[in-house]
């Protein structure tokens, strides 16, 4: 499988993987201080027809007060996952009402990590959030959605006096092939997929060329129905 690209010409790494898609971006993006909307960094993933199986997010942020940061990732399907949500807030006294005053993030966010950004604050460690870190909400919420398209990383600094920079973000996406007869892309096989196929067939959409012979004939219909009846794994 092919893939991996991204926009703004800030390609920092293309590492094609079998059944996976990596995409990086966001080099040197300033995170505006004390800004609720923050900055949104788009990352284009080129993985047509592939579904998300697992996501790991590598974040490299320079920031003198990581407790200021709210970071979310939105998949092309619109699923939003929290990566960081003002580490240390709400607190029980430590590290304080302004959250973790530690410096910098250099971490891979993955669901099964044992470390939690909320509790790994330290007065001395730099970067204070490092290694494998569990995200604020599960990245697996994105699983099954389309990997292909524009992903949005939003970085919002919620407190004044400290500003930072996104050095880079990399998405490591493990994918699985999409079901070719799920024409509606809703994850279910039903009569609407048949209707959608027939519409594509009549419009001579390349996706309806099921035999791959560049011809739109009855054999494409038979091939579709065979596949439809076989179902998707």
């Amino acid at each position, binding site marked *: 499988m092919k893939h991996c690209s991204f926009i703004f010409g800030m390609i920092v790494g293309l590492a094609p993987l079998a059944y996976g898609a990596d995409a990086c971006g966001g080099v040197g993006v300033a995170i505006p201080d004390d800004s609720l909307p923050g900055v949104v960094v788009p990352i284009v993933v080129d993985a047509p027809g592939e579904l998300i199986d697992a996501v790991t997010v590598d974040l490299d942020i320079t920031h*003198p*007060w990581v407790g200021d940061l709210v970071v979310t990732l939105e998949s092309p399907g619109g699923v939003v996952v929290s990566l960081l949500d003002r580490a240390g807030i*709400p*607190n*029980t*006294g*430590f*590290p*304080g*009402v*302004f959250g973790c*005053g530690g410096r910098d993030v250099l971490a891979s966010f993955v669901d099964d990590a044992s*470390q*939690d950004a*909320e*509790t790994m*604050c*330290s*007065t*001395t460690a730099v970067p204070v959030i490092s290694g494998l870190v569990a995200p604020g909400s599960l990245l697996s919420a994105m699983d099954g959605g389309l990997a292909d398209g524009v992903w949005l990383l939003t970085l919002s600094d919620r*407190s*004044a*006096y*400290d500003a930072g920079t996104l050095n880079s973000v990399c998405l490591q996406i493990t994918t699985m092939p999409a079901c070719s007869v799920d024409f509606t892309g809703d994850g279910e096989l039903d009569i609407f997929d048949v209707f959608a196929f027939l519409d594509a067939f009549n419009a001579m959409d390349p996706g309806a060329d099921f035999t791959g012979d560049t011809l739109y004939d009855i054999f494409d219909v038979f091939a579709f129905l065979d596949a439809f009846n076989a179902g998707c794994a």
Partner: protein
Amino acid sequence: MRIQWLIVLVFAIATPLSRGQTPVAVKQVAAPASDIESGLVRLPDAADLVVRSHSLMLPVELEHDRGGWSWSMPISVRTASAARIAFLPSVDGFWETELVAIPAASEQAVAEGARASWDSLPWTTSGRSFVCLQTPDGRQGSWRAAIHSSGPIDGYVVIDDGSGVELSTSVGSLVTLSGHPIRLHSSFSDGYSVRSIVAEIVGPDGTKQVQAPDVERSDVVFTPRAAGRYTVRVTAVGVDARGERVMLSTQHLIHAEQPAPMLGRVRAQVLGDGGIELGFAPDPSGRRTIVAAEVWGERNGEPVAVCWLSRVCGSDRSLVLDPRWIAYAGVDPATLELRNLRVHDVGSMVPIEVVERAEIGAIEIELPAVVGEPTADMLRGRSARMVASELPESVNRSVLPGHRLMLVHGYCTDANPFPTGHFSGDLAVFEDFGQSRSHDAFALEMLAQSAPMKSFGVVGHSQGGMGALHLLTFYWSGLDWARGERLIQTVGAPYQGTALAGNAAVLGDLFGFGCGVNDSMTYAGSAAWLSTIPSWARAEVWYWTTAFEDHVFVYDYCNIITDLLLSDPDDGVIERSAGQLVGGHSMGHTSGWCHTAGMRDPAQCTDAVRNAEMNARAKR
């Protein structure tokens, strides 16, 4: 991990708080074994905490005499140094004072009569000046101090005969509890022996008792019947081999604490994060205390100090041992024990209970990998434990958070002593005027006023230094997040106390205090407090001391009255020796600067050169 935080949060919310009390985040404090070995975190020997005096503080009751009221006393000047006597009447304007040579008829005596100076008495009710008479330098012989008045106005005199002889008095134990005898031992310097001794003891309810033990047992022993502050004035007569006599006094402020429930057996359990909780019997009263203990274990059969632990506690009295200390020390976990376990009242710092050794018992624990050096997490913990405290309402809440430099005044002042124009950037001015607070209460006030700040460093004067150091040691605050070079910079901070604390307490009976007595700044109170401050916290302090400019052939002082009560060099309030913080960064001692405005030399906080340096180097 989330679940643990949730539990802690629920516990904090569920803990019943007294009215007006707020939960504050306390640190699980630790210190390396080297702090134990150096004695830094050990209770000092009370015998070493001596109050020294080269003067006599004497109450004056005038006698009716030929239509007026009078008092007089002979003073023998036997050295080249001048004698000085300060007159402290309870009411202004009634005492006519004199200091005349005997016989007074000679022309020389008239020509070289006593010189008069006027000065205030710091910490007592402001606005009054008192006269101090001084014999001419080198004018030895007999003198007579006298008071004449139109009414029976009482007061005190403070006399320094210039002999240089000192009376030293120490309290027998730092553990001063109500219902338990307290012993004071006195001795003279320069070969003088105690000939007689009298102690006047004033209890917290104002009741007075006078003790005159026989000379064979020159120790004064009294038993405080109730908890509270006691002032003790010890007056002793000494005699040397030639039969020369000297009479001097020492003044003491002693806090008799209410005993607390005994700590009892240690209950050890391993927490979810691997920490070993060492629990003791709770104190149902919820009284806030500092619990501290040394942890020892055996390595190859030999006892080895592992670390020292302490924490501010409420009703739940426990310490948490990070197992990395055990790995670091390389001791067998089955051999752990506590030594010098103690509980201090967090306000007075009086040790309420001291236990020499306590067994921990067997604990099942998997030791972590050996660490190279103790980490910040090991020293300060990452605890989210909360203790209910009376967090004062701030009077100076800043509008916005930030990274600030906080200018912190000291005990009982009515203004910020630092010219704000000497400092730049984001400043916060601590305002807690006219108060007398323990170091702990001072620290909590700083915590309250720093609440709107993300981080801050401190430039502190006098008790402001101890308040900041206490805050850094025991509580989580913006101090922990400050960045830069120097976290706490102080001028004129009496880390080891000041003799004025006891003297002022005695004089306060007569003159009153705008702010109240302060037993955090006695020598004993300071020593007990310092024994809970580990090296890592001390290393965050940069401090300066100052004293008056010492001119040749001139009697110099910052305040002529307090100079009678302090040992030179002093800045009018603290002695240079008592301004030292072992483990801190001494930035030196400069002459020509006094503690506060209104003293002979300029106020030490107005030194523009030092302020510029502190401003440039401060963490924020």
